[in-house]
Every structure is written in structure tokens, then in C-alpha cells.
């Protein structure tokens, strides 16, 4: 739900509460991404209020874990289908879908096939992905790249532009170090530096990767060991939005011009940092599950030009 209280009319606040938490919508507002609720995005129209909420730019889906079948959610295909229905019902469709990884649970071909079959129902057809560590456990690390590797020429990182926003997709789940956090690696960081060279500091930047690019909880590996080198390349920009998944819950931080945000999963929740022996799937009462699953959407707000983030739950 939005931190930007000025955007929340009472009516929309009530809508937010009604829909609880299915995803996050982001709007670019004054060059700064702000989360707004998908329930609000659904209400987007050409009215004054609709314009204030912004035009949906993209929706972030994360941690779909197709193949998971334990008690924390025996029907992850069902909750992804619900998620897709919510996105498809948005009155103005987002231009892009971004998936921040853990598409599958065990990197199995059948899991990827089912995920792609479900994604094919999205009305928005342009989808950008980065892999999670669950997508790269096959011995040859080829199942993900065979399906989603073309955008990055199988490197896992690439950039693109849309609506004046520069998007950078990064991979931080391959070069893991024993005992450590996620890793980007020197080669990828050097590529980012080159990619950003010559870009105007007023260009809004969206960076997305699976594991958080800021340390949320080191004992569980909720962070990226060499993220600081990446962030130092981004500091000169006026609006930087860093989007991650991995931890199956919303954690947000604003630091200078950078907004860090982790999305909910569409599959199952995980415990709060440090609660229990590790980040296991969290079993909650069935009637509470949907409120803990969801997506993030990002809107482009023109006056002032900015991005707004919005989290929406399935129920």
C-alpha cells in the first residue's frame, strides 16, 4: 500500500483495505517511483483522480514458485491465475510485466512449461524476467535460459527503455559464495557502469533483480554482497527504483533518491527475518493466505512526472 498519503483519497483508501494486499503497482511521480495499490490502479481512468493515480507503467510479479505443492499453498498455479486475473482486470493495462524470479520451484521443464502457459493469459504481452536461485538449480542451468535467456543473450542481465524510463535487469543468483549473500560479480557491475555512462541524471532508472540489492537479513542471505558497488554507479541519478523479490514479503526503504522495494510472492509467504530456523514456506490459516500474496504495480504520473508503487494482495 502506498506510503504517499497525499495520493490516497478516502475512497481509494477504503478500496485498498477492501482488496487487502494482490500486488504492487508503481507510479513514476516527480521522477520518484511510488507504490500505489492495484485496487486503485484498477480504478484508473481519464478523470482528474485517475490522472493523479498515474498510468500503470508495469506490474511486478514475483516468486510464483510453480511446482511447489506443500501445505503452505497446495495450489500455486491457482493463486498465479488469480494474480493474472487481477492484472487483466485493470482498466488500463500496464505496458510491461516484470517477473523478479523464482518462476519455478525446482527448475523443472514441466514447471517452466506450466508457468509459461499461465503467463500466456496476460493481456500485457511484454514480459521481462530475471531468474531466482530456484530457477537455476538444474545441473546445467539451461532450463531458464532456454526459455527466457534471449533478451540477455543468455548472460542474465540486460537493459531497455520504455516511456522515458531506463530499466536494468540484473542476475545475482549464480555466482554465490559459500556462506555468503547473492553476488553480481565484477563483470556485471562493469557492464552497468558502461550502460549508464552518458545517460542524463534526470532519467528515471528502474533496477530489478531477484535477491534484494540491499542487506535485509544477512543470516538468511537476504542481500547481495557486492550491491554497494552497483549502487555507487546509480547515486548520481535523480530517481532510482530498486525492485526485488526473494523474501516473499514487502520491505521498503528510501535512501536519498533511491527507493528499495521487495514484492510479495504469488505462491506462499515466508516468515519475518530471523523468525524460525530459516526462510521456509510459512503455513498460515487458509483464509489468511491470499492477503499475504500479491504483486506490485508501478504507474507513471505525469504532473509532476513520477513513478508510484502500489502493492495489491489477492484478497
Amino acid at each position, binding site marked *: 500500500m502506498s506510503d504517499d498519503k497525499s495520493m490516497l483519497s478516502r475512497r481509494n483508501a477504503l478500496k485498498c483495505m477492501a482488496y487487502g494486499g494482490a500486488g504492487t503497482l508503481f507510479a513514476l511521480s516527480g521522477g520518484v517511483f511510488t507504490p500505489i495499490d492495484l485496487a486503485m490502479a484498477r480504478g484508473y481512468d481519464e478523470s482528474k483522480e485517475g490522472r493523479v493515480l498515474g498510468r500503470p507503467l508495469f506490474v511486478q510479479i514475483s516468486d510464483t514458485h510453480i511446482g511447489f505443492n506443500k501445505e503452505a499453498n497446495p495450489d500455486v498455479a491457482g493463486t498465479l491465475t488469480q494474480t493474472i486475473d487481477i492484472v487483466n482486470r485493470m482498466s488500463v493495462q500496464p505496458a510491461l510485466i516484470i517477473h523478479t524470479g523464482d518462476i519455478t*520451484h525446482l527448475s523443472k521443464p514441466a514447471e517452466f512449461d506450466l508457468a509459461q502457459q499461465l503467463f500466456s493469459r496476460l493481456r500485457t504481452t511484454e514480459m521481462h524476467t530475471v531468474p531466482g536461485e*530456484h530457477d*537455476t538449480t538444474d545441473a546445467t542451468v539451461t532450463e531458464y535460459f532456454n526459455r527466457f535467456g534471449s533478451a540477455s543473450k543468455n548472460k542474465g542481465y540486460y537493459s531497455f527503455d520504455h516511456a522515458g524510463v531506463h530499466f536494468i535487469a540484473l542476475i545475482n543468483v549464480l555466482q554465490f559464495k*559459500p556462506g*555468503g549473500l547473492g553476488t553480481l560479480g565484477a563483470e556485471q557491475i562493469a557492464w552497468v557502469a558502461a550502460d549508464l555512462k552518458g545517460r542524463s541524471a534526470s532519467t528515471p532508472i528502474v533496477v530489478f533483480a531477484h535477491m534484494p540489492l540491499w542487506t535485509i537479513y544477512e543470516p538468511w542471505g537476504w542481500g547481495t554482497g557486492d550491491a554497494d558497488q552497483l549502487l555507487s554507479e546509480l547515486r548520481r541519478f535523480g530517481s532510482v527504483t530498486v525492485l526485488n523479490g526473494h523474501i516473499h514479503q514487502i520491505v521498503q526503504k528510501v535512501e536519498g533518491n533511491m527507493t528499495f522495494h521487495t514484492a510479495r510472492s504469488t505462491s506462499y509467504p515466508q516468515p519475518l527475518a530471523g523468525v524460525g530456523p*530459516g526462510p*521456509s514456506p510459512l503455513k498460515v490459516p487458509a483464509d489468511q493466505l491470499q492477503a499475504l500474496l500479491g504483486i506490485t504495480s508501478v504507474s507513471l504520473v505525469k504532473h509532476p512526472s513520477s513513478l508510484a508503487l502500489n502493492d495489491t494482495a489477492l484478497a
Partner: protein
Amino acid sequence: VNIRRMQMLLTVVGMVILGAAEVYVPSAAETADATKIVAKDFMFMPTPVTVKAGSTVTWTNMDNEPHTVVSDTGLFKSGGMDTSESFSYKFDKPGTYHFTCSIHPRMVGTVVVE
């Protein structure tokens, strides 16, 4: 001797034994030529383990979250192991072999081959 008190004591001893039974303890037969390591509560246990050259080590995932077993040198690599799934590797040469779960890199362990 107070019989009632002894019964209580026996009950307590029984409970302690029952409690201990939940911890995996390899039997002597299992340690002879095969060693079992479990991944449980996001830890490899036991570790380190010492085996003779030619021994097969089997890792079993006992968590509700998938784990992998990946040699630090790339010598062996399991796929993603779901709950109750196992992976085995036969160690032919003496040496010290470190391994990690690539999904949870803080999970580390060591096999020493003599």
C-alpha cells in the same frame, strides 16, 4: 525405594530417549561404507564427516524448502532436492571436500576422505 518415584523417573528417562530419537544418528553399519548427511532446519548435519576412500555419501533433504549440494570445486552438483529427495556421490580419492547449498549459501559442510 519409592516405587512411584521410580516410575516417574523412568517416565522422564523414556521421554528423554524419545526426544533424542528425533535427532538423526547414523548406525554403525551405515558409517562403514556409506554416510548420510541430512539438510534440516537450513543446516547440513552432521558436518564434517570422515569417510574412507571409495565411500558413498548420501545427502537427504528433510526441510519443506528445496536444497542443493554443490561442491566448492565443481566436482559434484545435485539438482534441486525437494523434501525427502536424496543425492549421492562416491568419493574415490582422499582429500577434504567442501560443499554448499546453492539456494541457501550459508548452508555449508565438509566431507573428509581418508
